[in-house]
């Protein structure tokens, strides 16, 4: 566990936003993530990729906030993809039975392609 200070970076790739949460995803940082996604949703973006490659740790509050984003996108018929999840992160979502409600890719490029073409 590196537990770097949490930060969120993002970029727009075509019509999809790619978000990079970094560090420990808890209540405070989860709020930042929700806010960052909200900014894109506010701009009419309905395709979001969350790249977890630099997320060290997530707690249950972070998970609930992630579910919030999934629901927000669902409400606007948008899509969210999760990528570059560590084994630990994947196992955690699996333990909770949440993985089936998420669209997961091992690489960011695979997610972007899926969002572009609709094919996995």
């Amino acid at each position, binding site marked *: 566990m590196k537990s770097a200070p949490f930060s969120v970076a993002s970029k727009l790739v075509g019509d999809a936003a790619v978000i990079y949460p970094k560090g420990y995803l808890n209540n405070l940082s989860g709020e930042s993530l929700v806010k960052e996604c909200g900014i894109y949703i506010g701009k009419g973006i309905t395709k979001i990729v969350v790249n977890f490659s630099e997320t060290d740790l997530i*707690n249950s509050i972070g998970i609930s906030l992630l579910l919030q984003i999934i629901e927000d996108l669902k409400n606007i018929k948008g899509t969210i993809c999760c990528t570059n999840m560590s084994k630990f992160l994947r*196992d955690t979502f699996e333990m909770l039975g949440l993985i089936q409600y998420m669209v997961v890719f091992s690489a960011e490029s695979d997610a972007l392609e899926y969002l572009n073409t609709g094919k996995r």
Partner: protein
Amino acid sequence: MPVPSNAIPAEDFLNRESELHYLKGLSALKERALGGNVFLEGARGMGKTELLMQLHRALFREEDVVPFYYPFKTANQKGGYFAKDYFTRFVRQYLAFVKKESAIAENVAEPLSCLVPAIASLGLHWLTDCIENFQAHLNHRDFYWQLIAAISAPVTAAQKGGKPVTVMLDDFDAAEQLFESSFGDAHALISLFGESMQNRLCPHVVTGSAGALDALFTDHSLLGMTERMRLGPLPEDLAVQLFRTHLATLKITCAPDLRFAFLALLRGNPLYIRNLAKATWKMEKKELTEKDLVECYGFEVSEGETAFYWTSVFNRYVQNPTKRRAMVKLLKHAMESGGMEERGRLSIISGLCEAETASILDAIEATGILRDENAVFQDFIRALYMREIEGRKPGDVREKIESKYLSAEEGSCFELVIPMSSNAELVVAKAVEQIGINMNLDADFLNHLQLALIEVCINAMEHSGSYEKKVFLKFITQPNRLEIIVENSGRPFSLDSLTELPVGEKLQMGIKRGWGFKLVRSIMDSVKVERVNDRTRVIMAKEIKDKEVHP
């Protein structure tokens, strides 16, 4: 009932040579006005009674000083019965000394009248007169003179018989409870011993609770006549030697690598050492290991002789079962909070009114048990609390006590306190990371442990409403097990209060929170939540399998 001749073999009575030597010479010192009486002080089980019995035996084997030993612990406190018992025992022990036949002292079934011919044949006519006088007081039902005659019998014997008498009064504080016909009807009968204690031919060696006797020697005619002798614990090496001796007597063999490290817990207390040795025999141990010692100890403090001993002490001071339970609660509270606080507040703990609570606190003070505070006593209280207050089964209680030491014995224990502040749980996660590295745990496995711990901590921070705003953590590591205890004050929490809905249903209902304990339960092998006084305690354990450890 202790009988002087039941003393352990002198060679097994360790590290008390100087005390024994001093007490043996006490009569000579008192005759020359260089010494007086001795109040033998020391924690319970430290060997005060045994020292008296050794002194009795040593004097019995010689000719110069007559030993008289009287145990108040088992005495009937009704004055008339006490007087008869005290007098009869003295006569028996005196005759046994003169004839050098210890059996005379032990044969309590034989009436005193049967001893008169033997006394007469020895020419001890003054003793026959004493017996007749005492009988006359009995016949006249003269309570006061019965007591005086009994208590002064050693003085009379010393004056008439020409040999000083060393009087050994074991648990002398019980004499404060002497009464005439009903409890509390005759105060200060104990002061009748003052005359006898002042006599130059009769040094007295007394034992008893320091709490009770402090008051006695301060307010009483005995002030200034009595010196204190403190019996300390056996040094570590002698404690092991004594334990080995007991094991040899009981024919218990030891594993070759047994270091007796666990014995340090007994703090050189001969009673505890003996009881633990006996427990190994009762539990039919062979090739004794350190783990066996812990197991036998768990039995001892919960159901064995040590538990029985302390229960008897409790019963002596507090007879009412409800009050005894309250006493247990108060003692456990005192142990956990490092002492007794303001009396008024303690009635909340005891569950009784302030007056009743005060009487229990007085009894606790009189027993002196908080002064004698030691790990064994504390474990006895824990065991008693689990059994009587929490209603746990004996096996469960034993296991709890054992687990405390098995963990500490074979592994390590780390404690940590964190504030209930933002990201404080990450400090805990870092701590468990280092513990995991020490245990060579696999990184992925370790991440999950961190997550479980974080969840319990944030649950405490979010929901407890604690004014203390602290979370207390304890990590107990063993080669193949990790136990984590998380404790916080504030609002109670129970696993039963959690409702487990299927994930789909939960999401459909828009419920996004409540994943924490689901994670904890998935990660850990066992999760238990207890309420201890005003604190919630979460106990999590994880067995470490080979695949989760780096080679």
